[in-house]
């Protein structure tokens, strides 16, 4: 499944340990995410999945008690050595568990990031960009007549696709999704999953999910996190077809706990 020609390592994580105060939430994680793959991270609640994502785009800067040690390299460069975290975050799109339609119009939600970065260009260019992002997020047809209505008034599933359109607005190299389907109905979830399969050609995707079957459907490779430990990483097909080495992975995938 992995395209080996494009399969160089996009993200390399070494010795990553994250703690809040004295409480560790992730210990000694080492993994690679290959370019143009969907990398699934599964595991029950409090296993450190979200903290991992926060460390990748350096959201730990916002949280005074979050400590990160070890290294995360993106394109071979340690993210800790990037002084301009804002430029780093512009390379990484994030979709949160609960949809966050900012209290702006649909258009302004999608145009926000280019405007903030000063790359909005002319009105026609921005119009074109907003339309392209909304189309790729499978939302265009539903909102094209109300681009100037408040984004926070859309339905939950629409807002989540709006969030995806917003994350795509800066053509990110990496897209991170954190349990995106929690507040979304099954039909919309399937549409978003189709979108993700298409986006893979253009970017690297990290998909954190607590739905084991979603990882099975989408991910090329899957990592299993449990209580702050990365238990196992493997090709998704192999893991799900009895190839799990660690018995805990086997039990989790088999639905024995979690």
């Amino acid at each position, binding site marked *: 499944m992995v395209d080996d020609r494009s399969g160089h390592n996009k993200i390399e994580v070494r010795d990553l340990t994250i703690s809040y105060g004295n409480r560790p939430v992730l210990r000694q994680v080492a993994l690679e995410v290959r370019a143009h793959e969907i990398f699934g991270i599964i595991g029950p609640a409090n296993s450190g999945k979200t903290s991992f994502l926060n460390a990748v*785009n350096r*959201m730990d800067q*916002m949280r*005074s008690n979050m400590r990160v040690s070890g290294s995360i390299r993106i394109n071979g460069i340690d993210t800790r050595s990037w002084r301009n975290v*804002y*430029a*780093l*975050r*512009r390379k*990484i*799109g*994030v979709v*949160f568990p*609960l949809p*966050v339609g*900012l*209290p*702006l119009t649909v258009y302004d939600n999608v145009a*926000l*990031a280019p*405007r*903030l*970065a000063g790359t909005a260009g002319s009105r026609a260019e921005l119009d074109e960009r907003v339309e392209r992002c909304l189309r790729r997020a499978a939302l265009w047809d539903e909102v094209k007549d109300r681009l100037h*209505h*408040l984004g926070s*008034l859309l339905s939950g599933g629409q807002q989540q696709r709006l*969030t995806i359109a*917003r*994350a795509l*607005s*800066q053509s990110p190299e990496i897209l991170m999704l954190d349990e995106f389907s929690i507040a979304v109905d099954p039909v919309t979830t399937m549409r978003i999953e189709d979108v993700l399969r298409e986006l893979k050609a253009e970017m690297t995707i990290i998909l954190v999910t607590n739905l084991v079957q979603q990882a099975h459907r989408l991910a090329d490779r899957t990592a299993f996190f449990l209580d702050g430990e990365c238990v196992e990483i493997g090709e998704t097909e192999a893991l799900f077809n009895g190839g799990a080495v660690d018995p805990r992975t086997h039990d989790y995938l088999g639905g024995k706990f979690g």
Partner: protein
Amino acid sequence: MEPGDATRLDARDSRWYIDKGFEIVMFLCGISAIVFVVGIFLFVFREGLGFILHDMDVGEFFFSPKWRPTSLHHPTYGILAMVAGTAAVTVLAMAICLPFSIGAAIYIAEFATGRTRETLKILIEFLAAIPSVVWGFIALSIMNPLIITLFDVPMGLGVLNSALILALMAAPIVTSIAEDAFKAVPDSYREAAEALGATRWQTIYKVVLPAARNGLLSAGLLGVGRGFGETMAVLMASGHSINLPTSVFDSFRALTATIAAELGETPVGSSHYQSLFAIGIFLFFITFIINMTADFVVRGVRKG
């Protein structure tokens, strides 16, 4: 069902009576607020009505700057000078107060953490507890000589002095309401903006401020209400002379201060007495209009 269940279900036990009693007490508390407001309105209106019906010349009342209710030969009742003075002070006070208060609220809500935050909040609340006569004293004994020295003017009591004092008085309440408005903006908005690469200032300017717009508006209008309604400090800081102010150093007289200073000296039921209540009615309407405007604007914002 056992026999007797029906009567047991129908019985009014002690809990039922306590619940009913509680309901009635709560109802009385709720209704009393309305009764008092309507009562005050009726009282003020009744006292001022005679003047409005018989003695008042509408043109003179609103458009004459001459307030001479005690003149023996030809009393005049013009409130223009007082309205202009009060309005000028309110506008100037808000122009000074809002940037500082909203800036302080942004710092407390978005940047300050831990002990700094708590200390600042306590200090600001302390500022709100200073009685207005103390502010008036500050205006007379500190601001007055300061303005005289700094600007080389003959007198330091007037529009500028009152506006500075009012700004200081309104700052704590405006700051704490604005801070509440910022706190009410969900953190998920900030995280979403920062994840898009927004700097902290961009996050505040582009996302937090628009989201907190309603709350900030009510903070501002509360400040305006304070400006129109404050009596004692303005009475002491304004110079209290009837004068249409043309510069920020001019003395003026506030509507409220006029009522406070003159009401005790007038015979109950006289034209002068009633005219003061007419001013009260006018203030009532101003406050009413400010609140209604706030209400409509807030509703308009919600509809989007």
